[in-house]
């Protein structure tokens, strides 16, 4: 039966994706960038919308929510997966509201009038069936995919507004967004980049080789020298794994020290992060698995008698951050909560 084939095909794809997630996040730095992760998740969600059996928006949302829960459980440190699920849920809500004819504005506004009169209104059950809902949702998801494709370019286009000639810019570890940002600015301006190598995996080395290939003057320093050279740095531009709802960051290990050193020298700290990294989750860190620890510290024969800590992420509070550069422009950390309310519906914050 064709229907059953489609279903098994879909479940196979979902299982393959989950297995990939479980394998991918061992902490050796993401095997794939978060941009790719976001795109893969959105493709899968589009496929679920197209192929799964559902009759009303409520059913679809239930299906997506269940799959989303399984995906985030497979790899809790990869937050872009959960973010995309929430975006799609918000898309479904919007399309449903549009099909029903009620404007989204009145739905979302929390006015005093609404609070007082809301008691008798029926709950939104999303049970109505609309013929074109599926097509609309898929079209909206396609728009989301186009947005995802263009994020790095959108951020890189803003580079010339922020980097002037003869600057010394510091960056930490490896971020594809920051690499594209700096390469774009290097086409027109001459500046120096100092890359902190970010032990134990030293992803900074890859970043430095990438930048020096396009002719940017790059220097690699050890993590310990960050404060020592910070007095000569004009700007610190870094990427991040996740942007939290309060404007804080969940970034690679060592970023908090960089942020503190930048604040001490009053150096602006600029974060290049696309919007799909914005997450309503609470900050949690995770540690490296035992295999990775053994590969990072090979000569420590007394490891059995000693506690070794290898956290993967750092929390950076919003007071230390100067600016967020995302695909929709530059924003202060104090404005992030508002952007988040536009991207996700409050009921979806907990999947």
């Amino acid at each position, binding site marked *: 039966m064709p229907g059953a084939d489609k279903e098994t095909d879909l479940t196979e794809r979902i299982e393959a994706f989950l297995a990939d997630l479980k394998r991918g996040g061992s902490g050796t730095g993401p095997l794939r960038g978060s941009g790719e992760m976001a795109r893969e998740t959105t493709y899968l969600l589009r496929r679920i919308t197209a192929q799964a059996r559902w009759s009303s928006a409520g059913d679809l949302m239930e299906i997506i929510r269940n799959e989303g829960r399984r995906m985030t459980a497979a790899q809790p440190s990869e937050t872009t997966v959960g973010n995309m699920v929430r975006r799609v849920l918000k898309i479904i809500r919007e399309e449903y509201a549009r099909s029903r004819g009620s404007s989204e504005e009145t739905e979302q506004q929390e006015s005093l009038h609404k609070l007082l009169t809301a008691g008798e209104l029926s709950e939104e059950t999303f049970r109505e069936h609309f013929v074109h809902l599926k097509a609309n949702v898929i079209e909206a998801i396609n728009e989301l995919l186009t947005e995802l494709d263009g994020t790095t370019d959108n951020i890189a286009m803003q580079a010339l507004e922020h980097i002037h000639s003869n600057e010394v810019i510091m960056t930490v570890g490896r971020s594809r967004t920051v690499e594209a940002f700096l390469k774009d600015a290097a086409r027109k301006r001459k500046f120096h980049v100092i890359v902190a*190598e*970010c*032990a*134990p*995996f*030293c992803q900074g*080395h*890859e970043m*430095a*080789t990438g930048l*020096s*290939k396009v*002719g*940017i*003057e*790059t*220097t*690699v*320093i*050890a*993590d*310990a*020298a*960050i*404060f*020592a*050279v910070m*007095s*000569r740095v004009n700007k610190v531009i870094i990427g991040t794994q996740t942007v939290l709802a309060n404007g804080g960051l969940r970034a690679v*290990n*060592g970023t*908090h*020290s960089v942020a*503190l*050193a930048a604040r*001490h020298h009053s150096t602006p700290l600029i974060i290049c992060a696309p919007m799909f990294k914005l997450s309503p989750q609470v900050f949690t*860190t995770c540690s490296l698995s035992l295999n990775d620890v053994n*590969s990072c*510290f090979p*000569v*420590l024969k*007394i490891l059995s*008698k*000693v*506690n*070794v*800590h*290898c*956290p993967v992420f*750092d*929390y950076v509070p919003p007071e230390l951050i100067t600016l967020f550069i995302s695909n929709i422009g530059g924003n202060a950390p104090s404005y992030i909560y508002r952007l988040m309310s536009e991207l996700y519906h409050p009921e979806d914050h907990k999947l």
Partner: protein
Amino acid sequence: GTSVVVYMVPQYSSIHIAAVVVSMFSTIICGFLFLLVVKRLPEHVQVDDPAVVKRLAKKLERQQIPLRSDYGYKVSLFSHLHQYSRKAPLTQLLSIPSTVIHPSIVRLGLQYSQGIVAGSNARSVALLHAFKQVIRDYTTPPNEELSRDLVNKLKPYISFLNQCRPLSASMGNAIKYIKKEISNIPSQCKEEEAKTKLLTCIDRYIEEKIVLAAKAISKYAIEKISDGDVILVYGYSSLVNNILCEAFEKSRKFRVIVVDSRPRLEGREALRRLVQRGISCTYVLISALSYILPEVSKVFLGAHALLANGYVMSRVGTSQIALVARTYNVPVLVCCETYKFCERVQTDSFVSNELDDPDDLMVTRKGKTQLENWQDVSSLGLLNLVYDVTPPDFVDLVITDLGMIPCTSVPVVLRVKNLDQ
């Protein structure tokens, strides 16, 4: 000059002329005083000045010591410093057997340049032992005085050691002391007597300034360690290790967190020694500092030198630890013997520093070395700093053998020491 002035302004009275003359003389005298008081800038921070480099090359040629050449692309901010490669030690350029340099000095130079002897206390003690050997093997040539000839004999050795690795502040102070002792030998003293006198002086210096000072500092520091403390240390400082081991012997209950950093990874040595004694330890890299600091109750740091404006010169990374500890309101205690106090002043880590072999930053993971051919890429540079300076507002207390002082009291101690001498 005076006559020209008189000729050119005949209508001015003699008082004016006298005033001009006096001012000219006073500027000349001030110039002399300036030259006397301010020390000449050391050579190893003037690598970008070709005149200085030529002068050094001539001096080394006279002393028959080979000149070490710089290696690799230097970051422009540090073009005034040397950058050597460990794979090309100076001893390879020496002729064998070397007639000018004593073999124990050659061995010491090699140990310095390969990093076998590292740490300011270890280097100073090794230097003093090598000098003792030199003095034992020394014979005064005829028609020469020991007090002057021995000092001249030591000069090429010091240049050689400087070429192998720039001298540390503690070594500089030790050398000053030895030179002073040698020049104070009265001329009627017999050679054997003079030599035994010098040897006992050196032994006493080591005993007083290093060994006993360490005991005194431990005594003060142990007062600051209470039961249940979680102490953070950075890298390997012989003094701080000593303090922790003694505190453990006096049955204080504490645990230690050792912070380490690439590329030297000296913390592993500290970890090994502490674990051998039975102290419970945790090991992290410096990037995990913000993660581990909420657990810490005190930070103990060692120092390479204490500068006269209160800045602490220590292994690179120390200032970062002090900064983050200050943010988390954790007290930072620096332990330093008084013989490491230095009259230099410095405000940043650029003007006077040491650049280590840049190849150390390369790392091979999973069979791939990212920066393998960094020399071929013209716009890529590797920077391996050795020291950095910590501002005094990050340091809460300095524990020395003279007691516990704030960072800003360093010039007071220096003045007291100078008066003693």
